[in-house]
C-alpha cells in the first residue's frame, strides 16, 4: 500500500491536490462494463428533467404561504444548485457493484463522457444553472442581498465544472484518502 505503488502521492501540506491518472488495472476495471452511473445523462429525457424539476421547485415554493416572489426564486435557485452540487460534484464512486470500485475516486461530473470536456451534455448542464441564475436575479428585481446569495450559489456549481478543475480536490479539513 505504499504511495508509489498506488501512484497517489501527496504532500500533506498542500490544500489542492489533483487525482492522478488511473493504473492499467483500474482502467481495465472501468472498461469492464459501461458506466451506467454516468451514461444515463446522455439518454432521452435526461435534459428535460432539469427544466421539469426547476418548474416543480418553483411551484412548490410558490404554494408555500408567506413566501414572496423574490424569496421563492432564490429558494428555487439555491435548491437546484445544492442538489446538482451534491449529485455531480460531492458524491464519488458508483452506487452499484459494476466496476469493482474502479470509479471510487471520481465524482459523477468526472465520470460523464469518460472525462471528456465540452461535450453537449456538459454544455447543457453548465448552461442550465447560469440561465436559472440570470432569471432569478431578474425576478428578484436586482436586490443586492438576493443577488449575492444567488451569485455564490451559481459559482459553487460553475467552478467545479470548469475543465481546469477536472480531478481537482480541495482539502481544507479532511485528510485525503490514500
Amino acid at each position: 500500500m505504499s504511495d508509489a505503488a498506488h501512484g497517489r502521492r501527496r504532500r500533506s501540506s498542500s490544500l489542492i491536490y489533483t487525482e492522478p491518472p488511473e493504473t492499467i488495472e483500474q482502467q481495465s476495471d472501468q472498461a469492464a462494463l459501461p458506466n451506467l452511473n454516468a451514461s444515463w445523462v446522455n439518454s432521452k429525457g435526461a435534459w428535460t428533467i432539469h427544466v421539469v424539476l426547476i418548474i416543480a421547485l418553483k411551484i412548490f415554493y410558490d404554494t408555500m404561504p408567506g413566501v414572496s416572489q423574490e424569496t421563492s426564486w432564490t429558494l428555487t435557485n439555491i435548491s437546484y444548485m445544492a442538489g446538482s452540487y451534491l449529485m455531480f460534484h460531492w458524491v464519488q464512486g458508483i452506487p452499484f457493484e459494476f466496476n469493482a470500485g474502479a470509479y471510487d475516486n471520481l465524482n459523477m461530473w468526472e465520470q460523464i463522457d469518460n472525462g471528456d470536456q465540452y461535450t453537449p451534455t456538459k454544455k447543457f448542464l453548465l448552461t442550465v444553472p447560469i440561465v436559472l441564475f440570470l432569471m432569478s436575479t431578474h425576478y428578484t428585481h436586482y436586490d443586492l442581498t438576493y443577488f449575492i446569495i444567488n451569485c455564490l450559489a451559481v459559482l459553487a456549481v460553475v467552478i467545479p465544472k470548469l475543465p481546469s478543475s477536472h480531478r481537482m480536490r480541495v482539502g481544507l479539513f479532511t485528510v485525503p484518502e490514500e
Partner: protein
Amino acid sequence: MDLHDAYVLLNWSAGELSTRFQRVPGSQILLRYIKSSYQNDPVRSVVELCLFLFAVRYLLAPRYSTTQKGAVELTEDEIDELVEDWTPEPLVPGLTEVEQAENEKRPVIVGPTGPKVKLSNGRTVNNFASYNFFNFVSNELLKDRAVQVLRNYGVGACGPPNFYGTQDVHMDTERDIAKFLGMPACIIYAQAFSTISSVIPAFSKRGDIIVADKAVNFAIQKGLQISRSTIRWYEHNDMEDLGRVLEQVKRDMARKPLTRRFIVTEGLFENTGDIVDLPAIIELKQRYKYRLILDESYSFGVLGRTGRGVTEHQNVDPQSVEMLVGSLAHGICSGGGFCAGSPEVVDHQRISSSAYVFSAALPAMLAVTTSETLKLLEGNPQVLTALRENIKAFRNQMDRCEYVECTSSLDNPVCMFILKRDGLEGRIFGNEEKILMDIVDEALANSVMISRVKHIYETQGTKPFGWRCVPSFKACITIGHTKKEVEKAGSVVRQAVGKVMARLKK
C-alpha cells in the same frame, strides 16, 4: 469635408443598424431586459455580462478528451507499415531445456489410478504422486454408491446452483460438511481451485485490506489479485511479523474511513507443507479486529483426531474462523470445494460469489461421494492413525538422507523435500530443477513414482506477486501401501537422492 462625410456615414449606419435590430423578433424583449437589468448598478451588470460571455465561450468550445493526450494522427499507409513491422511476442514463452526433457519423460498412467498404477510403458509402479491419502479411490463402497447416484441423477447438474443446478443431494452434502466441521452453515462449489479464488473477492473489494502469508498457494494469489484489495504480506508463518504488519495497518488507517479487513492464510501450506499457527492468528485477529479466511484445502480430512482439519488439530473452535474454505478434491478424493461459516457468510456467497453464481453445480455423484466419505472418516478414525504411521515410516527413511530436508509438518501426508545447501552451494545453485528431476526419474526407474513441485510465478505489472518457492519434490503417502512398501519406497527415494548427489559431487 472629410470629417463631416464620415460623421454622416456613421450616423446613417448607426440608424440603419438600429432599425434592422428592431426588425429582429424578440429584440424589444432583449432591450427591455437590458434596460431594466442595468438599474444604475454597473458592477452587478458586469458580473452578469461576464457570466453570460463565459457561457457563450463554453458553448462554442470544441470537445476534447482528457484521457488520450497527444495521440499521433497516422495515415492509412503509416498504419499498414507499422502493422507490417510488428512481430507479436509469443503468447507463452518457449519451453526451457528442463521442461523439454520433462515432457519427453513424463509418465502416463494407463487404467485407473490407485496406490499401484500401470504406466504406458508397461511397468507397474507404486504411486506416491496422488492425493489419495486414505485410498478412497479404490473403495468399492464409494464406487457402488457413485454408480447408483449416476443412474438416478445423471452426470452433471447442467446449471448454476441458483437456476436449476441445486439438487437435494447438494443440500444434504452442505449439511453434512457443516455438521462434520461443527460450523453453522456451509456452501459447496463445483471446483476446488475456484473456491478460494472466488470466496476472497466475494467479501473483499477495492479499498479493503488483506493481510496474507507470503507463501499462500496459487489459487489464493489469484483470489487476492481479482479482489483488487490492498494487499499486505507477512513473512511465512512469522507471527511476530504478522503482528508488526497489523500494527502498521492500524497506524496507517487511523484517521481514514473504516474498511473491511481480512487475514488470509492456509492450514497446511501447498508450497511448503508446514502448518499454520492458528491459535496465535486467532489471538491477533481478535485483537486487531480482522476476519480470517483460512484455506484448508490440504488439511481438511487429514489433520486432527478425526480429520476435521487444522482447527481440531490445534484445539481451536472452528467458529472462530469466519470463512473456512476447503477442498473435496484432495483428501476426500471426490471433487469440488466448500466454504463453511456463519449463515450470513454463506448466504452472501450464494448471490455474490462468482464461482457459485456462474458455474454449473457439482455433479450429484460427487456430492454423494463426499457425504459418504465423511461418514467413512467419522466411522473409522483408525485410517488417520494408519496414515500417520505410514508418514512416520517414510520420514524415518528419508531423515537418514544427508542431502535433503523435509519442510512438511509431521502430520502432513504430502512430504516436501528441498535440497540442503551446505557444502554444495555452487553446484546446486541454478541447477536445482534439473537435479530434482534426476531424482524423480531415478526413483521412477526403481518403481516409485514421486513428483517434482511445479510452480507458476505470477507478476503484477512488472513486479513479482507472491514469493518464489524453493524448488522441491514431494511424495504423497497413502494407506493404500503397507508399512513395508512405504519403508521400501522411502529407502528407494533416499538412494535415488544419494546417487544423483554423488554424481553431482564428482
